[in-house]
């Protein structure tokens, strides 16, 4: 696989290093001369100097034959435009963009630059996952596919607590796919599995059903 990585900061350099270690062919593009010279000591011919938003710089890096273009500069405008030309001008099939400010995610989406990875959002999701007291955690959101997977802890007073799976009143378009019991491992429940308070259930659902799911499992819980 040939990968063009634009942006030689901490993210870009470590990414390039790891990809090379995995045997991939990589060209890293860095626009700051001093940073470039430092990286060149290590990566040698795998790094090129130039403004990765300029077309000739991308062409010199071989964007026409790239299987994957990754834009990870510290500038969201740059990352969006690099990926936009990679996709629309050079017809690169796979792009990945870094989103520095989560408020800019809407711009990535507007211009079809997907996936956009936001470290801030990833950490926020982890916090949501790790901090107890949050009733509902989004494990997977696929808005285009109209699919979500959430994890919710069953509260003491929940209507679902102590009931069999088949008796829990779940809305149409949702399904319990796994149960994590305290101290044990996860398992796929059967229709007669009894859900207990303290269990964590994984539910696959159509977007928009969160609140009716929460009513069943964590009526006083925090709506994520």
């Amino acid at each position, binding site marked *: 696989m040939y990968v063009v990585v634009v942006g030689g900061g901490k993210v870009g350099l470590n990414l390039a290093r790891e990809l090379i270690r995995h045997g991939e062919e990589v060209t890293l593009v860095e626009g700051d001369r001093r940073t470039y010279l430092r990286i060149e000591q290590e990566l040698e011919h795998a790094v090129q100097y130039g403004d990765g*938003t*300029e*077309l*000739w710089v991308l062409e010199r890096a071989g964007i026409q034959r790239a299987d994957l273009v990754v834009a990870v500069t510290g*500038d*969201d*405008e*740059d990352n*969006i*435009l690099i990926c936009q*030309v990679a996709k*629309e*001008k050079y017809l690169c099939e796979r792009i990945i963009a870094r989103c520095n400010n989560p*408020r*800019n995610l*809407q*711009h990535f989406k*507007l*211009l079809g630059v997907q996936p956009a990875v936001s470290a801030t959002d990833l950490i926020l999701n982890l916090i949501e996952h790790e901090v107890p007291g949050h009733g509902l955690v989004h494990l997977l959101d696929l808005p285009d596919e109209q699919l979500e997977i959430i994890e919710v802890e069953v509260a003491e007073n929940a209507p679902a607590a102590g009931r069999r799976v088949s008796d829990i009143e779940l809305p149409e378009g949702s399904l319990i796919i796994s149960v994590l019991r305290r101290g044990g491992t996860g398992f796929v429940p059967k229709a007669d599995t009894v859900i207990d308070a303290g269990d964590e259930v994984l539910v696959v659902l159509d977007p928009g059903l969160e609140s009716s799911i929460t009513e069943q499992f964590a009526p006083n819980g925090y709506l994520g």
Partner: protein
Amino acid sequence: MMVLVVGAGRVGAAVAKSSLAAGHTVSVLDEDPLSHERLDAGQPTSWEDAGGRFTVGTAIEIDALLAAGIEDADIFIAATRGDNTNILVAQVAQKRFGVPRVIVRVLDPARSDWYAEQGLHTICAVKLGIAMFEQAVLEAARS
């Protein structure tokens, strides 16, 4: 016509002033409050007294664009110093807010051409400058 100018530098401020003088409603957005001075310079009254609007904010922030009146804009001019900001914010104006006329300042000739092919009205001062230099060199060589 309502003209929204993003970036009150030499280009943006000059176009804003002439648009106001031509009788249009003009709103200017710039992240630097001091850029307002450029709008007042050489004018008998202040920018606001002359009927202009000025908003301090970052071009790619939706809230700033809304505050500057993008929803009412008939003409959108992206004239910050950054090509990438201009190209991005112009596409936001065109695709998200449906502004009918979007004009973008792009210094990089190659991307000015490519984005023009994609339907943006780009203006590349560098390209014009290069053509004038080439013409001047040819004429100088001939004489």
